């Protein structure tokens, strides 16, 4: 490929020069040899050779010029000519640019999200060397947390790591500065955390190994740059500042560099403290002084562990070395169970069977990747299809234009331009269009991806994701632009290659035979646009209706008019014995607010991501042979919980305030659980026990069966669940559910005030309505439904523009024929009908291909659907009707124009 070679030659000019020099030298020497053979003296021979040759420097320059510059010069000419051509038809250029900008912009926006959420490496030193430690328990599966003793063993005894760190996220820290509290997102870290990651502080110092020596001894904190900016307005006097974290004093010792956000993309860490401070910031979790002490118990897994491999150490080698350390640590864990209620042969077996695994950790923790990977790829597929529609549209535009330019091109060919040269010119124009569209698309993408991010993460204030124009995204845009140029640019180039000069010059452009080729190709393009649009519309329809189903299906509770908020009293210094009195006071005071109908609380709250499982024994129940006992979900709840949530009690009674310590121990089970263990028999009065749960509460009597309710998300299958009266087994950290008479938002302020009057210092988290909670749990589904609908509609619009363009063109071309038909007696309605029939035949053709395609494509998103099947006929019918109606409208104008042709004029213009 000469062009490529010449551009390459630009970069290797000296090599080109050397080669030419060698060639010229060999010429002069051959002439000299011949001269000498003819009897000249060497001196004469040389002079004669030089004389005949001319100035070798000039010759070399000219030869090199032929090798290097020729191509570039003509490219520049092509570009200028192309720009002039595009300027001359601003309407065409504008439409093409906008269309391309939409297509390329949508792709870039989604890709930049994919890049930020799924592909990007952590902003730390050599992220590719990082591995994340995980353990595999054959009976439970993958576990990503380790005990503190295990981490210390890894740290002190490994021979394969150049460093290992541990951390634990700490959501919702009460961060008090100068008497002002506010929520912050924190983490507990090992002393090695910052040095292993190579993360620097811009002020003060990071947390160091000497900060992790003894429990409770190092009240130091490092804050993140963004938090420093938001909370302290970049105050440089920050180092040494004393603050209160969850009721415990700390000193800020440093501020991390701006680009560092933590180890989980999508999440921002505001404050880090040494993990030995666990008992100070989360006394409820730390269990200090008990066998469950987080810093001592070898069976309490709570730390994420990441490590940096030594150079040259393979993953297998490292795993083998760490496995031996881990196996010992698991033996200790099994021994540590002795005398605890958790202890059982099964529990020990499970600990001893656990093995270690190393996974690549350079991208950080996988939570966000797992949550958004599927929806983002679905949307990526959607925008790729949209890009195809875009290409078809621009190709159609170019086709019409190529027709108008036939004469121009024929003239250029006739006066001696090479066909290749003309094709190159046309391709240059396509590339210019794509480049312009790409640049505009980039702008659109940055604006768009920011809005998408808000949509994606709006439910979690602590989430943040940096979407910046980096080289990966720019490279992607460039690639997509070139690809589009290639796709739509082939068409005019191909037309030019086919062009027959003589008829193109001599005939009236409107009547040339070539136009039939144009409209055939145009029809193919429009049909494929309709096909793709239908696929997108069906997908969007299915996803939107799934979202609606998720929202409208009865979840087992009434989500209207409920307000939620959470408290965690142990965190602010309450003792275990004070919990029940506090809860009772809160229930009483909130219940006294006039607009409040009913109040209760539960540990997890409705649709919470947290959950708890245990295994149980049912009195008198013998498992059928081979029957696997499913783990049972547990939710401790307050009095009148089911009345407040409006979950129907099918048999028996709701919990009351009388179900407290000292009273007979009771439990409520859900329908699925009742069916699983008791079939059609009445379970009321039967007893069950949970030997592994919180120091074994003993036998509990079943007092009610309630309807199944969704616990964690709206998609889940009903799981066997038991509800415990929280007043009998007290614990801290509950979510209040308050049913109000009307819009619950109006009561929010009154509730906050009431909590304040009960205890001024008790922080309130997550105050929101249950409806918002439901919406938050559907953020993914909403994102996918919204985006796929948006892009589906866009594709439909583009298809309509394509169809309109084609029909308008056809009518224009057939003005003569229509004139003749009218002169022969055709009615205007017949003419309009003819155009509409042609449109419909195209649309039906598109639908005929599109329906099976859509049914196939929708099977790929089957797992995202809820309450309907992939090939849902209603959705198909709706999508087809919408397509037909809209495309019918698009052809209305051309049809009217055809009907209003004046036969006299049409014939006279012949």
């Amino acid at each position, binding site marked *: 490929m000469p062009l490529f070679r010449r551009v390459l030659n630009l970069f290797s000019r000296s090599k080109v020069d050397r080669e030419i020099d060698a060639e010229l030298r*060999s010429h002069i020497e051959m002439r000299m040899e011949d001269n000498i053979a003819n009897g000249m003296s060497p001196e004469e021979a040389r002079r004669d050779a030089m004389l005949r040759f001319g100035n070798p420097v000039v010759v070399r320059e000219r030869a090199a010029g*032929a*090798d290097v510059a020729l191509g570039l010069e003509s490219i520049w000419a092509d570009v200028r000519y192309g720009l002039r051509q595009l300027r001359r038809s601003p309407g065409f250029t504008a439409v093409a640019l906008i269309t391309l900008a939409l297509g390329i912009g949508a792709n870039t926006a989604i890709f930049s999200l994919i890049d930020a959420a799924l592909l990007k490496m952590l902003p730390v030193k050599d992220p590719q060397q990082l591995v994340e430690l995980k353990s595999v328990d054959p009976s439970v599966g993958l576990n990503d947390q380790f005990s503190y003793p295990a981490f210390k063993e890894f740290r002190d005894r490994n021979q394969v790591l150049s460093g290992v760190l541990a951390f634990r996220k700490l959501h919702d820290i009460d961060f008090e500065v100068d008497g002002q509290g506010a929520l912050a997102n924190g983490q507990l870290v090992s002393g090695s955390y910052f040095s292993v990651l190579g993360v620097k502080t811009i002020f003060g110092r990071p947390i160091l190994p000497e900060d992790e020596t003894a429990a409770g001894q190092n009240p130091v904190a490092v804050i993140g740059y963004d938090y420093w900016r938001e909370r302290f307005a970049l105050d440089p006097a920050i180092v040494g500042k004393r603050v209160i974290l969850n009721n415990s004093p700390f000193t800020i010792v440093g501020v991390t560099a701006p680009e560092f956000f933590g180890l989980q993309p999508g999440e921002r860490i505001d404050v880090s403290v040494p993990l030995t401070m666990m008992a100070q910031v989360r006394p409820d979790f730390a269990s200090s002084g008990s066998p469950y002490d987080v810093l001592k118990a070898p069976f309490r897994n709570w730390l994420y562990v990441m490590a940096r491999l030594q150079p040259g150490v393979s993953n297998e080698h490292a795993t083998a070395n760490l496995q031996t350390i881990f196996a010992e640590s698991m033996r200790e864990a099994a021994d540590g169970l002795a005398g605890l209620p958790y202890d059982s042969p099964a529990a020990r077996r499970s600990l001893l069977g656990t093995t270690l695994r190393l996974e690549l950790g350079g991208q950080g923790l996988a939570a966000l990747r797992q949550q958004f990977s599927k929806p983002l790829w679905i949307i990526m597929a959607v925008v790729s299809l949209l890009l195809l529609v875009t290409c078809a549209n621009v190709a159609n535009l170019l086709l019409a234009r190529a027709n108008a330019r036939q004469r121009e091109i024929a003239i250029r060919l006739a006066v001696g331009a090479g066909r290749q040269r003309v094709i190159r010119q046309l391709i240059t124009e396509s590339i210019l269009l794509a480049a312009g569209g790409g640049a505009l698309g980039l702008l659109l993408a940055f604006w768009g991806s920011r809005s998408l991010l808000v949509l994606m993460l709006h439910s979690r204030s602590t989430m943040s994701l940096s979407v910046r124009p980096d080289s990966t995204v720019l490279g992607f845009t460039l690639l997509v632009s070139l690809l589009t140029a290639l796709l739509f640019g082939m068409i005019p180039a191909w037309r030019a290659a086919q062009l027959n000069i003589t008829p193109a010059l001599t005939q009236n452009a409107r009547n040339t035979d070539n136009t039939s080729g144009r409209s055939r190709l145009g029809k193919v393009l429009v049909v494929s646009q309709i096909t793709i649009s239908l696929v997108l519309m069906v997908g969007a329809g299915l996803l939107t209706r799934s979202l609606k189903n998720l929202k409208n299906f009865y979840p087992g509770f009434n989500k209207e008019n409920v307000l939620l908020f959470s408290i965690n009293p142990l965190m602010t210094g309450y003792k275990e014995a004070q919990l029940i009195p506090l809860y009772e006071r809160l229930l009483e005071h909130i219940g006294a607010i006039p607009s409040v109908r009913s109040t209760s609380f539960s540990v997890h709250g409705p649709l919470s991501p947290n959950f708890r499982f245990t295994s149980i024994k049912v009195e008198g129940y013998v498992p059928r042979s081979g029957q696997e006992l499913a783990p049972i979900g547990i939710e401790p709840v307050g009095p009148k919980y089911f009345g407040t949530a409006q979950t129907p009690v099918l048999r028996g009674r709701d919990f009351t305030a009388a179900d407290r310590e000292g009273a007979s121990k009771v439990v409520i089970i859900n329908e699925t659980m009742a069916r699983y263990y008791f079939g059609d028999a009445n379970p009321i009065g039967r007893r069950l026990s949970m030997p592994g749960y919180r120091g074994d509460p003993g036998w509990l009597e079943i007092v009610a069966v309630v309807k199944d309710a969704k616990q964690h998300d709206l998609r889940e299958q009903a799981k066997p669940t038991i509800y415990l009266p929280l007043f009998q087994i007290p614990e801290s950290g509950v979510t209040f559910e308050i049913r109000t008479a009307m819009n619950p938002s109006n009561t929010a302020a009154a509730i906050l005030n009431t909590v304040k009057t009960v205890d001024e210092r008790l922080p309130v988290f997550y105050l929101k309505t249950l409806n918002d909670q439901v919406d938050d749990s559907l953020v993914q589904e909403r994102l996918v439904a919204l985006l796929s609908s948006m892009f589906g509609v866009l594709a439909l619009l583009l298809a309509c523009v394509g169809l309109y363009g084609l029909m308008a063109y056809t009518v224009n071309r057939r003005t003569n024929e229509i004139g003749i038909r009218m002169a022969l007696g055709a009615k205007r309605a017949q003419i309009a009908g003819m155009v509409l029939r042609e449109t419909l035949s195209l649309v039906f053709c598109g639908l005929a291909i599109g329906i099976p395609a859509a049914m196939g494509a929708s099977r790929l998103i089957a797992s995202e659907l809820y309450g309907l099947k992939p090939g849902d006929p209603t959705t198909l019918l709706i999508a087809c009707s919408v397509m037909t109606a809209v495309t019918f409208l698009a052809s209305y104008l051309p049809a009217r124009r055809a009907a209003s042709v004046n036969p006299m004029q049409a014939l006279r213009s012949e």
Partner: protein
Amino acid sequence: MAKNDLQGTLDLLVLKTLSQVGELHGYGIVLHIQRASDALLNVEEGSLYPALHRMEQSSWIKSEWALTETGRKAKYYRLTAAGQKQLAEAEKSFEQLVKGIRAMLRYA
């Protein structure tokens, strides 16, 4: 003859030479043109090379380093298919040119 035409003529001479001889280096092309034209046509030897390189970039000819009979390294040129076509066109247009010029001369 005008300069532009001279260049076209030189291309024609080179292409014709290569089509007759097959593979040849620059010096050999010069010698062949001299011999074949009975020493009527004398090209300035150096000006051959820019033309050769331009034709190579247009893919009319291909080059390859090889040894001469006397064991010297030289760059050999060979006609490509595109060069064959170009030669035919150039011959035709040269014929036209000559015909035109002849007609002009006769007319006076």
